[in-house]
């Protein structure tokens, strides 16, 4: 439905977006994930039409959008600070987009949307008197109400506390799925991204590093940045691995994926086993979370409680690595 091709944007000396291409299917929930300053908000603003790209094109259902004014795009954008209109009530805020687009039965749609976000009876409230979570819901309702062809959310949950965020995430996703809404959301939090998105675009320094489903990203990170950003650890060099075990792996960047790591009782022939020292252990529900140091490199992984026993930190251990989980990165 939405296609971005080779979008570039520069502010003064810094290249904020560098040749970004992205495709979003109808009904899909896409998340732009990346550290702050990676250009994800700018990308959102370019799609919304609030900024013009220096190069590249934006197509919606095959139509070039460059000359379509912001207010004619029929998009929704929820700002990080919610940008609720302070001089209007909750209901007036939600009705705003409906009025602007001259839709019928404004009152009905407004109250429907307010019920959808669980704010049914709060239409007459002054927006200045709402709590953070309530403001977030009003902002969401306001963006949703006109049924935008594309809804964009800029760090929608950033200013909420963790408990509230965990409760709202599945709720949000459910609302989007129920309404068949196409969504692009922006966040710097990978759990939030995984919980809400069908596909995630990981951004770094103005580029999209990888664009895939959460599962695929986790299982097959394309490069060192993605692996590190997702907390999968840093890659090692082929020579290093060869020096630790009598095996030959070619490649400059090899990711020893934590999903393939366990502590082993003894050297086993079937798998790759490295000599290391347990540096740290912490208990985490059904797993141990362990850090093992092998010849100057540290590896973090989860170790099931019911697997082999975990010794005190400082003890020499064997680290077993599944060959299938040794990934070659770009």
């Amino acid at each position, binding site marked *: 439905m939405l296609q971005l091709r080779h979008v570039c944007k520069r502010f003064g000396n810094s290249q904020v977006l560098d040749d970004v291409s992205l495709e979003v299917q109808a009904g899909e929930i896409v998340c732009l994930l990346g550290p702050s300053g990676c250009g994800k908000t700018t990308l959102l603003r370019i799609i919304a*039409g*609030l900024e013009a790209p220096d190069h590249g094109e934006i197509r919606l259902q095959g139509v070039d959008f460059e000359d379509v004014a912001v207010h*004619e795009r029929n998009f929704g954008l929820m700002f990080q600070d919610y940008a609720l209109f302070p001089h209007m009530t909750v209901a007036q805020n939600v009705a*705003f987009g409906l009025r602007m687009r001259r839709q019928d039965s404004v009152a009905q749609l407004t109250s429907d949307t307010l019920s959808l976000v669980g704010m049914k009876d709060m239409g007459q409230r002054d927006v200045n008197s709402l709590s953070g979570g309530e403001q977030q819901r009003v902002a969401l309702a306001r963006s949703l109400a006109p049924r935008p062809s594309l809804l964009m959310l800029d760090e929608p949950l950033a200013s909420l506390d963790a408990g509230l965020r965990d409760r709202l995430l599945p709720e949000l996703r459910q609302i989007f799925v129920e309404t068949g809404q196409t969504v692009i959301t922006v966040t710097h939090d990978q759990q939030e991204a995984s919980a809400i998105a069908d596909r995630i675009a990981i951004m770094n320094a103005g580029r999209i590093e990888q664009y895939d489903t959460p599962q695929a990203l986790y299982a097959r990170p394309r490069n060192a940045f993605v692996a590190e950003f997702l907390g999968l650890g840093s890659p090692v060099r082929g020579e290093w691995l060869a020096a630790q075990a009598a095996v030959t792996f070619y490649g400059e960047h090899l990711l020893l994926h934590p999903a393939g790591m366990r502590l082993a009782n003894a050297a086993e022939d079937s798998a790759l086993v490295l000599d290391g020292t347990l540096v740290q252990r912490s208990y985490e529900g059904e797993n141990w979370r362990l850090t093992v140091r092998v010849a100057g490199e540290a590896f973090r992984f989860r170790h099931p409680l019911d697997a082999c026993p975990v010794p005190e930190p400082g003890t020499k251990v064997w680290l077993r690595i599944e060959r299938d989980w040794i990934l070659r990165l770009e």
Partner: protein
Amino acid sequence: MARLARPLLLLPLLFLGLFYVWPLLSILALGLAPDGTLETGQLRQLLSPWHLNTLVFTVFQALLSTVLTIALVLPAAWVCVRWSFPGRSLLLSLSTLAFVLPTVVVAAAFSALIGSGGLVNDLLRQTLGPNAAPLRLEGTLAIILIAHVFYNFAVALRIITGFWANRSTLQEDAARVLGAQGWRLWWEIRLPLLRPALLAAAALIFIFTFTSFGVIIILGELRFSTLEVEIYLQAVNLFNLPVAAGLSLLQISFMLVLMLFYTRLRQRLPLALRAAQAPRPRGWRQCLAVSAVSGFMLVLLAAPLLALALRSLSGAEGLTGAWYAALSRDVRGSVLFVPPVQAVGNSLFYAFCTTAMALVLGLLAASLIQRRSRRWLDPLFMLPLATSAVTLGFGFIVALDEPPLDLRASPVLIPIAHTLVALPFVVRSIQPSLDAISPSLRESASVLGATPWQVWRQIDLPLVSRGLLVGAIFAFTISMGEFGASLFIARPANATIPVVIYRLLGQPGTMNMGQAMAMSVILLLTCSLGFIVIERVQRAGSGAF
């Protein structure tokens, strides 16, 4: 707003160019280079110690007046924002009424109050004995400062409260939690957060007092002189255009530098805006604060006005309405006689035109300036205030002399001249609120489908409506009280209230004095009525905000 149609935004520039820059350049050129080449001989007079002393005094009294006014207004503004109490809006209106009175009338009111034979001195003599040295303020710096504070109190009060009332108290609460209180709360939190409004008010007051004219001549009795006065004396009495032009140029350049400095100091402070409901004062300390401040304002602002009203009602045998009755009697069958109803009508008509033009142009100008790259335009819109009225008046004669713009003798010039003066007030009143609107509000509205016009109408306009109200009241008041331009191009049919007052005062006969005072009271009443109407319109137009 930022994306409003470009030609519309250029309207204020066109207005300024046509009715300010062009006449000004014409008269300056005529004064400084009558034959096409710059005459430097005359200009050397500018550097005489006399003129340099004048410049120093001009700056000195303006700075002093500005600091004094702001310092006195702050507690009043605080009380008005913090609490709602009976008479709050009355005090605000009262302060603005002072702004409307012609200097001659204010001088009469002051002398009735603190003149050598005034009320205060009578009291002093009664209490301290007949030989007590009476208070002598005429011709002193003190009375100049008092008059400047009297005139400008409203400017500061309106701008500061207009901004403050919209401000959220979050930061203040935060600071309080962190342990700030008393003067530290003021010094470290309130004042810095109020900076946009403080600067806007200070800039206006400084310019206003920098170009002080009537107060210096009438109350200062010309024992001191400002550049504005010198320019008038040179241009009108001596018709020494080169020196008048040189001094005007000096005055304008000085203000321009100052305004550029001010523009740099100005910063955007997008703050949470809210329509807060002020509580009633509680406890004896709060009540005391409110009454002390209201009491001070009443003495400063209401006493001279009351003295005036009293004078308009007192005849040889006590209270009388004779002066009011006499206003509509045309004893001499003069062609210049203007019945009071007609004068009120004329004044209201010009004030209405001025308010409409100043608001529209002011809003457009403010949004034009709001873009970062256009900041340098800001001082331009302030300059008309900093320009000697007589210089500009002569500029009109020289520049606007060809059809279709032969407006030299046209009454259209009256609202135009008033608008030039009112425009900086409107811009300054709107600017702080406009700056405080977070850009995401406009972007949000835009994404939601609002056209640029709708964004402006639905977001900017309601959010600056309080500033707009302040601007409207100033524009209205300036037009109602102004008489220089109205006298400059007066036809019998379009005499305004101040023109009638001026004419009455120009003739001997007790009846004329009484009528002039009566007319002044009518001016005050008409203005108060105008304020009520404007506030109603604003409230109806923007809901509770």
